[in-house]
């Protein structure tokens, strides 16, 4: 029951040629099998530079629905809920409210988490100073000095909003369109709809920052899962370890030449089985073994930053030399875009600053600021930004009231779903603008609300997909990423 595309187009796998050759050779006397296997190794070695032999199956037949502005996506997911109040959404009037109770007409009975519901909602003004930057004059807090350099390439959406107030449901909603796990993720939908551009790498790759101290922000597999779509559409997590993809490394004692020989044996017997049973699944399986073999070279090649010049590391900052860091992952994201990976998603955890906001939030900015900006610069100078949509944001924002003592250095902010800020760049996004606004307390959206589902509709639109028409039938229903409530493409931010 695999995808029937494979069944229909059951082609001769590439290795079939090798097998034929091997049959031929084995007829001739004096050729040792080991030598042949080595010969096969050469012809079978895959690398990123190698031209494609055959196109991977492309996604759904009707897609794209219209011309795409972006071919690829990099989603810089900031998990935990970064504070829009410190980082982007300047509210100069808040000082005079410092320590006073948030007016009821602003709060409007908004629900709180159990962490602060018994506490008075006393206003805590931003802990940062802001600067109007670039030609656009967008406001960026002082904790992100590097981002100011690329501000005119960015589009800030200050009126993002969601319905979920706790992390797991909010992140699930942010990435799958629904708060309960079980739906396909954004990246999964895109991979399902558009298929792959690269036959040596998966369509959808995920990287999680390796933190200097252990994170307490869990990141669940379903955030990049395929839900009810076939599992081949789920994000493949690249880990910062010797084995970036699970089970990628050959086991001890089975080095590449032996593995190649074994693989040929498998293909030969599987092919024989196919001739006996006629099941096209077997042909697909032969091909998937070859893809797995190629991934064993292409992934380490992708992962190996030793071919990057010194200037790359200078651009992305000192932390980029630490494998698995956010900065190193940003370099990886650029390499993936270069190799045609459709959807790349980074996760950086620990933006959940209930207390000690002014020390911890600064630390997260330090982890990410330079590298995020560098990624924009790097993509731009390589001419890749036009085709690549870059997104930065978390699952919700943070509230204007202080958590703990509002005037103590230990003060923090609780979760806030009603408004938060994201920025986007590249692939069809209008650069140098700010869209939407919040009220004087950065509490409610004052104009042009962008719900999470509007964000999804817009991302799909940029990829040439009509969100109403990208559907999958499951349990008798045509599911779509944007769900049943109306979603709109935010046309005003499109270039």
């Amino acid at each position, binding site marked *: 029951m695999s995808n029937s595309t494979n069944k229909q187009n059951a082609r001769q796998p590439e290795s079939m040629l090798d097998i034929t050759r091997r049959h031929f050779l084995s007829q001739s006397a004096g050729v040792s099998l*080991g030598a042949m296997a080595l010969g096969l190794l050469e012809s079978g070695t895959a690398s990123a530079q190698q031209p494609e032999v055959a196109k991977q199956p492309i996604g759904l037949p009707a897609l794209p629905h219209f011309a795409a502005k972006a071919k690829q996506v990099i989603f810089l997911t900031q998990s935990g809920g970064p504070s829009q109040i410190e980082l982007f959404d300047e509210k100069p009037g808040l000082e005079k409210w410092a320590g006073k109770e948030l007016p009821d007409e602003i709060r409007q009975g908004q629900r709180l988490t159990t962490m602060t519901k018994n506490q008075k909602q006393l206003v805590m003004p931003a802990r940062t100073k802001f600067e109007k930057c670039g030609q656009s004059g967008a406001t960026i807090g002082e904790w992100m000095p590097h981002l100011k350099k690329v501000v005119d390439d960015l589009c800030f959406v200050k009126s993002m909003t969601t319905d979920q107030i706790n992390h797991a449901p909010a992140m699930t909603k942010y990435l799958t369109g629904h708060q309960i796990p079980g739906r396909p993720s954004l990246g999964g939908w895109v991979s399902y709809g558009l298929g792959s551009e690269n036959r040596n790498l998966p369509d959808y790759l995920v990287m999680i920052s390796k933190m200097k101290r252990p994170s307490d922000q869990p990141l669940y597999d379903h955030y990049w899962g395929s839900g009810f779509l076939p599992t081949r559409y789920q994000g493949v997590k690249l880990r910062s370890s010797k084995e970036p993809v699970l089970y990628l490394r050959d086991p001890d004692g089975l080095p590449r030449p032996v593995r190649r020989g074994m693989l040929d*044996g498998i293909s030969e017997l599987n092919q024989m089985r196919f001739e006996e049973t006629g099941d096209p699944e077997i042909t697909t399986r032969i091909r998937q073994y070859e893809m*797995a073999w190629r991934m064993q070279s292409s992934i380490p090649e992708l992962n190996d930053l030793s071919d990057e010049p010194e200037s790359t590391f200078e651009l992305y900052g000192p932390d980029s030399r630490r494998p698995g860091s956010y900065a190193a992952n940003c370099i990886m994201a650029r390499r993936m875009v270069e190799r045609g990976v459709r959807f790349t998603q980074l996760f950086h955890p620990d933006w959940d600053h209930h207390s000690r906001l002014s020390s911890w939030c600064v630390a997260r900015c330090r982890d990410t600021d330079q590298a995020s900006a560098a990624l924009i610069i790097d993509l731009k100078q390589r001419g890749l930004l036009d085709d690549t949509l870059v997104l930065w944001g978390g699952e919700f924002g943070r509230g204007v009231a202080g958590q703990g003592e509002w005037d103590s250095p230990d003060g923090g902010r609780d979760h806030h779903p009603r408004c938060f800020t994201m920025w986007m760049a590249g692939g069809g996004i209008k650069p140098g603008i700010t869209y939407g606004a919040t009220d004087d307390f950065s509490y409610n959206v004052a104009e042009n609300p962008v719900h999470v589902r509007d964000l999804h509709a817009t991302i799909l639109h940029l990829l040439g997909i009509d969100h109403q028409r990208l559907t999958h039938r499951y349990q008798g229903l045509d599911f779509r990423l944007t769900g049943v409530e109306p979603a709109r493409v935010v046309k005003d931010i499109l270039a």
Partner: protein
Amino acid sequence: MRHNILLITVVSLLMISVSQAGDDQVDFNRDIRPILSDKCFHCHGPDAKNQDSEFRLDSESNIFADLGGYFAVVPGKLNESVLHDRIRAEDESEQMPPIDSGRKLSDREKDLLDAWITQGATYQSHWAFIKPERPKLPKLTAANQKWVRNPIDYFIAARLEKEGLSPSKPAEIETLQRRASLSLTGLQPTIQQLKQSSNKYESKAYEIEVVRLLSTTGYAERQALRWLDAARYADTDGYQTDNNRTNWPWRDWATKAFHENMPFDQFTIEQLAGDMLPEATADQILASAFNRNHRQNAEGGALAAEFLIENVIDRVEVTSTVWLGLTAGCARCHDHKYDPISQREFYQMFAYFNNIGEKGIGKGVQANPVMQMSSPMNQLTPELAKKLADAKQALTDAKTTAGQRLEAWAKQTVKQLDSKAEDWLPVEVASATVSRGGGKLVEQSSGALLLEGKVDSAQYQVNFTVDGSMITAIRIEALPHDSFGKPRQLARSVNGNFVLTDVKLSLVNEKKTASPLKIKQAVASYAQDNYPVSNIIDGNATSGWAVYGSQTKPGVVSALLILEEPVSVSAGSSLQLQLDHKSQYAGHNIGQFRLSATENPLPKLSGKTELPTLVRSALRKIAEDRTAKEQTELEKYYATIDAKVAKAQTQVAKVEKEINTQGYGKVSVMVMQEREGDPVPAYFLNRGQYDEPDKSEALPRGVPVALLTGEEKKQPSNRLEFANWLVSKDHPLTARVYVNRVWQDHFGTGLVETTEDFGLQGEMPSHPDLLDWLSVEFIESGWDVKALHQLILTSATYRQSSKVTPGLTKLDPNNRLLARGPRFRMDGFVIRDIALQASGLLNPRVGGPPVNPYQPVGLWNAVSSGANTKYKQSSGSALYRKSMYTYWKRAVNPPRQIIFDAGGRETCDVRTNATNTPLQALVLMNDKTFVEAARHVAQQVLANTDKDTSARLETLYQRVIGRNADKPTLAILDRNLTFFLSHFENQPEEAAKLLAVGESARDESLPTTEHAAWTAVAHLVLNLDEAITLE
């Protein structure tokens, strides 16, 4: 998925070919309702509230309604039927479905709708909502008449005749035997079984084998595993903290039920309402854990009210999918768009499941109602059983000899009884300070000490005197105070809980020199799970005693410190008590407490020694003067305090603990327990939001009216009646839905492909009469599950060869017509299990706590927020348990199973999926599990067969694939073996590395080169398509 689109096309093509080939009669259920549901119901369906149009097409009365002088459908009169006009309208503003709806009718669909009207527009209720009747067996051609073995085959053959196809030849016996073994038990037939069958090449042998397979625990485990997916069983709570839970005795309950062939109606009733059965047994209450396998939120900010609702909704959804095959969840926020389930009815079903007094949040192991329960499949190992028997014997012996030690004790005790030893003596506080953390202790008129000030990690130092010569114990009473945090109110912390981590007691003499006193034992009136009072004297500064719990209320909590030796506090000297609070939690210091002391030789928390009157009077007499009764009572009493007895008791406790650790003891299982008294009211939740109940009306319990059968249409009044209703003889869905899933297990696809949806958007059955026949048969057999499996497996249909011909691939790529036997990739559980089985490593233990087999290092890192979430790999034979026992963590599912398409167990999962991906190839090629298995397969072959290479290759192939290899296969394997041999001869260090993979020991007597080369061959065979395919 393009696959589905294709499938829909194929099925509709098939349907059309039927209506064309046979009669031209349009069938409403088969041809018309799917079109209406798919293309029209979104705006003209049952969800009237959320539709712009008032016109509906979802029932007979609606379709034929008078729309004000005109009609959508006039039977037999196309020109008077507005539906015809609208679907054929040229004018875009008239056209249905509207252009901008994204829905479109094909020409074929328009023709069908017209033909239906012309033919008289016969209406039928949705097939799945009508009670199944046993259909007559169809008539067959003579050839097919010869082919059939049981009634199943009549229906299959009849359909094949219609399509002009014939069934395939029977599969070869060894293939068939392997197929049956895999689909019933998830295991391969053993070599011995294979040989037996080869000798008796006849159907009888196969039939006997099916019966044997049904009697194995392997069968029961396989069925239980399929049930676990449906029941969203997992070993953690899910959500942010993803805590460990211990519901696995329920998993074993399911295995036992399948093993004993519990009738499916009883199986249903016990799981849905076992707690409500009259005089319910512990096993029946355990069964009700089915509906407690939901996720459970313990995240810091989570609201109880919200997640209580989520839990109950989960029960409604899972129960609906598993028994009704309906997607009731759609009706949570609005009336169902396609099926006759209104939003109100959804919350009426909700009302059966919301009455168990649960809290909604908190860890699963404490999420009441819970029961302490051991696994019903547990059988103690002989070693443990002996250990326990020995310990118990020692205890009996100690009790027998206790009499000899009694008199000495009696003499000493009677002396103390005469003193006022039994009272709690007040202490006089000389000084009380907070020696670390700030704040101060203020003495109250009650003698209590009250902490003032905001303090973290406080240490108290209290010096006191007491008027007594033989102090045996000190008591600390923690006292509530109104100003403390609720609910506990024993400390100035958020929840009023404290953690006392360390206690030290010293005697300070006149010269102010302190000498420490040894505390023998600490006893508490209450302790929170994992925070026993023994922690305060364990020398570990961070472990502590705490008193929180899900049901706690304000009240006094006491701890008793029993001294090793009685101490006398003479004038001028004093006692010094140091209390330490070194926990990580803010403000968790005892907020108010009082000290007292006792001279009681048998100190007890309650104060007075509970010496029974008879014992008391007996003690005052010498042995000869005691009555017989006094003597017996005295001996009985003494046995409870004798040191030797105590020691023996400790040993028994130790063995029992070991038994527990190995999973034979009791653990906390979340179960259902219906509350006494009036049920908790259920309300209509606006938009499905927990905080938007419509409190104007408490909804009566009820199931969707469309599903009610019988004349009086009586609604079940409680959960037990609900369960009985599900398995009533007239129920239209339960039998069909279960039969269909069993069919899916054996053929890879159900007769209804949408296993989870029998509603209007579900697929029509490929063989409706067969599904009905099997369902009626199932009910009338007394819901006999094994009989159902047996019927399917012994049919000629199942016994066909699975060989695919090019013509058949084109006509029926997914084998829905069953002109051949099943062929599909097995799931990740089976793939690993049969590799272990071939290697001889498979550990046959059934049931017990979950295990942690090999898993890539660091996989849990992204979700571990505490030390207790590190993956701790099992050791020894626990590494080789069946995959169904692998610890199922919701946040990070076991990678092997997930890569092979297992559901995530977040919610119920009844449909199987079998994709074909490169990641699967990577698992089979590189996972340690399969390399180690290969090494053992090689070892078995090399150690147990003669030296003939070809015979060895044959054995190897048999072990892994479960059938015999043909000549060309053997030739290829032989070539590969030669290649591997030459490689490892040249690279002996590689051979050593390969043979070192995995924890298990290697047979060192085997030569390394040979063993490595054979390991490589075995690994190759384990990777073959046939190794992982049921065919």
